[in-house]
């Protein structure tokens, strides 16, 4: 929010006034020109220090006198300078303080403005009196005094000037230089807004500001930014004020605490900066500093939070940052030292406490004004962040564990612990019955966590886990399949775990109930019939799981083996063709034998001595009819088997191929918390047999 631009009307007016004074006065009257500028200091005094310094330097060039020279000049004047001069000197000291941060200038400003105590009937004097003292209170971190000065400023100056200003405005006199200090109202609004919203935070005043929430509410009610003729929208703090107000009154408030709201805003600003640096520079020193500042700001906000509502708002954000850091560690392969004093377990405790209040006490924790809907939304939001931070942490450790380093087992253990931690939360609040306080994505997340535990265990001890560990992995894979049966790779993972235990033959027996549940699912059927999101993919997977052979393919084959499987089918067909040929030949020979036998039966009886048989005959020895018949029967059975195999494969392979083409569903659900299929997964979870807790 640049304060330096805009304000065309008053800016022009100042320039005109200054020019007139300059033109009329000799160069030696430079201090009088400064006086003109200082009388309008309420227009520019809230500028950022750099912009303010540039403005003052510009005035110095115009007048040929620096602000310091003006202050020195006025200090040397012996006689009582009078009310206006005292005020101008006080303002000059304040401006110096605001550009240099000099405590000495601030003290001088306070001393000068204190001299106006007997002249506070004039609003202009009163404004600067409280405004300067408010800055002094900020400088020394005195929240009590700061609040008093700002309230005095509002009730003692603003309230009294508003009505005359409205009148002048109605009569189009508000731009007249002769209407007095009331014309300054739009600028005074801006100055007060900036003092409370921005300056207080820059000066590190994070506590004790709550009574000033009323001033923020006043400013937001048709005051700040309501005079674009005086202050253009882009130069006004209106937008920021609206955001603060929305947070102050919204469900992420801490019972309407301004201190908390501002602290959380500050933390979010630092968080945004840290996130930007992380994306552009990785774990550079600047990034690490920004992360530390951000974490510190979140700590400050948490200290201000007096309600679980406020703590939830902080943890919801800080967990996001934790998750981002773990994701960056995994992505960048770096593990910088960062002390983060926030624990996922504490977020779970907050969730537990708020969940405990579900039957009516929730209002007591800060949600009274926002209603149950806000309470439910906040709890779901917190859960989702717990989920995400947990998984980011777990996946970082899993990736580290898979690197096969010295700490592999330790990392795999850590990954499994994170996943199991989520499952514990899930089992406590979501597994047994639908819970409106838990997001729909929790069920897919439970599948992901179960699979994660299985994966971590399977890779334990260099991929040679103990039998007991394998059993645990298998149990987790089975659970994951029950929760989300549409991840093809999970079936293969289960098959591998069974294979490691020498139980691969049990794969179909273990997985068949899951496949049957998919086939029976009324929710899934309705979903597909209604053509809802990803219905086609789900239909393909459902049809695939209705075929045992496809289930076996899921377990023991993958896309790379599809060609091989198709070649296998061709081979079967070739074998069947060969069999058919062989069978035809056998039948032909049988027929010939039978004919031969029939012919023999019709011939005269054989002579007493048989003719000699040539030992050199090239005719192979002919089987008899029984042998040929037996052989033919064997071939018929073989052909029947082949036909069954071919028929099954002809049916299964296209389904498997189709299922292989279903990609991206897992990724979509992982990345989109509001993906509609989460709702289906949740409904399907309660169509299954009831599960035991933990």
């Amino acid at each position: 929010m640049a304060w330096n631009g805009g304000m065309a009307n008053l800016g022009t007016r100042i320039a005109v006034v200054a020019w007139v004074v300059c033109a009329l006065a000799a160069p030696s009257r430079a201090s009088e020109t400064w006086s003109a500028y200082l009388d309008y200091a309420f227009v520019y005094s809230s500028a950022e220090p750099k912009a303010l310094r540039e403005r003052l330097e510009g005035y110095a060039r115009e007048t040929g006198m620096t602000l310091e020279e003006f202050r020195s000049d006025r200090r040397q004047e012996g006689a009582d300078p009078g009310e206006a001069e005292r005020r101008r000197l006080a303002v000059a000291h304040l401006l110096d303080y605001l550009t240099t941060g000099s405590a000495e200038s601030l003290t001088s400003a306070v001393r000068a403005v204190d001299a106006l105590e007997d002249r506070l009937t004039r609003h202009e004097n009163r404004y600067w009196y409280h405004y300067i003292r408010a800055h002094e209170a900020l400088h020394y971190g005195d929240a009590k005094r700061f609040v008093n000065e700002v309230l005095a400023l509002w009730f003692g100056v603003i309230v009294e000037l508003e009505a005359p200003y409205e009148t002048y405005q109605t009569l189009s006199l508000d731009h007249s230089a002769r209407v007095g200090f009331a014309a300054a109202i739009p600028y005074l609004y801006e100055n007060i807004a900036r003092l409370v919203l921005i300056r207080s935070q820059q000066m590190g005043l994070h506590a004790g500001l709550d009574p000033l929430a009323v001033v923020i509410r006043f400013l937001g009610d048709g005051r700040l930014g309501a005079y674009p003729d005086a202050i253009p929208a882009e130069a006004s703090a209106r937008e920021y004020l609206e955001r603060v107000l929305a947070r102050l009154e919204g469900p992420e408030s801490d019972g309407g605490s301004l201190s908390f709201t501002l602290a959380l805003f500050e933390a979010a600003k630092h968080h945004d900066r840290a996130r930007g640096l992380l994306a552009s520079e990785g774990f550079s020193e600047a990034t690490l500093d920004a992360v530390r500042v951000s974490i510190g700001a979140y700590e400050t906000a948490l200290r201000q939070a007096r309600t679980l509502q406020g703590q939830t708002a902080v943890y919801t954000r800080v967990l996001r940052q934790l998750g981002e850091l773990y994701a960056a560690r995994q992505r960048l392969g770096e593990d910088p030292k960062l002390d983060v004093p926030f624990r996922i377990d504490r977020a779970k405790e907050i969730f537990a406490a708020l969940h405990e209040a579900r039957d009516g006490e929730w209002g007591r924790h800060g949600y009274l004004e926002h209603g149950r809907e806000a309470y439910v939304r906040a709890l779901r939001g917190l859960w989702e962040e717990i989920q995400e931070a947990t998984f980011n942490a777990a996946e970082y450790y899993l990736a580290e564990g898979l690197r096969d380093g010295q700490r592999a087992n330790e990392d795999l253990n850590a990954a499994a612990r994170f996943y199991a931690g989520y499952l514990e939360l899930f089992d406590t609040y979501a597994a047994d019955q639908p819970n409106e306080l838990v997001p729909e994505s929790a069920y897919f997340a439970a599948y992901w966590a179960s699979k994660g535990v299985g994966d971590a265990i399977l890779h334990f001890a260099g991929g040679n886990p103990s039998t007991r560990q394998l059993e645990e992995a298998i149990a987790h894979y089975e659970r994951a399949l029950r929760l989300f049966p549409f991840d093809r790779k999970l079936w293969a993972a289960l098959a591998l775990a069974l294979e490691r235990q020498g139980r691969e033959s049990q794969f179909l027996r273990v997985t068949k109930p899951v496949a049957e549940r998919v086939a029976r699912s009324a929710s899934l059927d309705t979903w597909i019939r209604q053509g809802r999101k990803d219905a086609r993919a789900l239909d393909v997977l459902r049809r695939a799981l209705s075929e045992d052979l496809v289930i076996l393919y899921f377990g023991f084959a993958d896309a790379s083996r599809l060609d091989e499987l198709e070649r296998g089918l061709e081979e079967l067909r070739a074998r069947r063709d060969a069999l058919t040929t062989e069978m035809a030949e056998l039948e032909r020979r049988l027929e010939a034998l039978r004919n031969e036998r029939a012919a023999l039966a019709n011939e005269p009886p054989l002579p007493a001595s048989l003719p000699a048989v040539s030992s050199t005959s090239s005719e192979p020895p002919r089987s008899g009819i029984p042998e040929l018949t037996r052989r033919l029967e064997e071939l018929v059975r073989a052909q029947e088997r082949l036909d069954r195999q071919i028929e099954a494969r002809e049916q299964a392979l296209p389904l498997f191929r189709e299922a292989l083409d279903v990609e991206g569903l897992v990724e979509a659900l992982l990345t989109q918390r509001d993906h509609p299929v989460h709702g289906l997964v949740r409904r399907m979870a309660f169509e299954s047999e009831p599960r035991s807790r933990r």
Partner: protein
Amino acid sequence: MTHGRHTPALAGAILALACGGGCATGEYYESRPAVIESRSHADGQVLAQRKLKMRRAQRDLVHLRATLQNLRRHRDAAGLDRLAPFVRTYLGDYVSELLSRESGAWHPELVPLDANLLFAAAAVRMELGDRLELERLIGEIEQRFQDSQSLLVEYPIGEQSTLGQALEALKRERWKI
């Protein structure tokens, strides 16, 4: 540049009109019969200004009440101690002036605003725990609006009800102090 040193005559005249000649602090709520006066000089601009001020004051009282409520719920005694004196002065000086029928800017069109402002002031007094002032406001409402029970007012804060219902609600709630 000497702005503010000499208030122009015109501005002075406007100010005098805006204040209706009654800017001096008077009795908070004068006991006046609920007769609506219409004065010729209260028409036009001054009336418009008065309406604007009354509406704004009513909204500001709602903001004050919300902030006081937040502080109370936070058990922020220090915050309450800091804000309360300013609120009492605001009610005692500024709001009482707006509610005064002595101010010379009275008009029938101000009746609903008057009622709403009284209820908003009462709500703030309740939040402050100012039992006596609350009783005075209730008495004032009864006296001013004994024949206007069906007038719609914004009380409880954030809701609308007839003045009769609102007054009953206010009387019930006063015992919470």
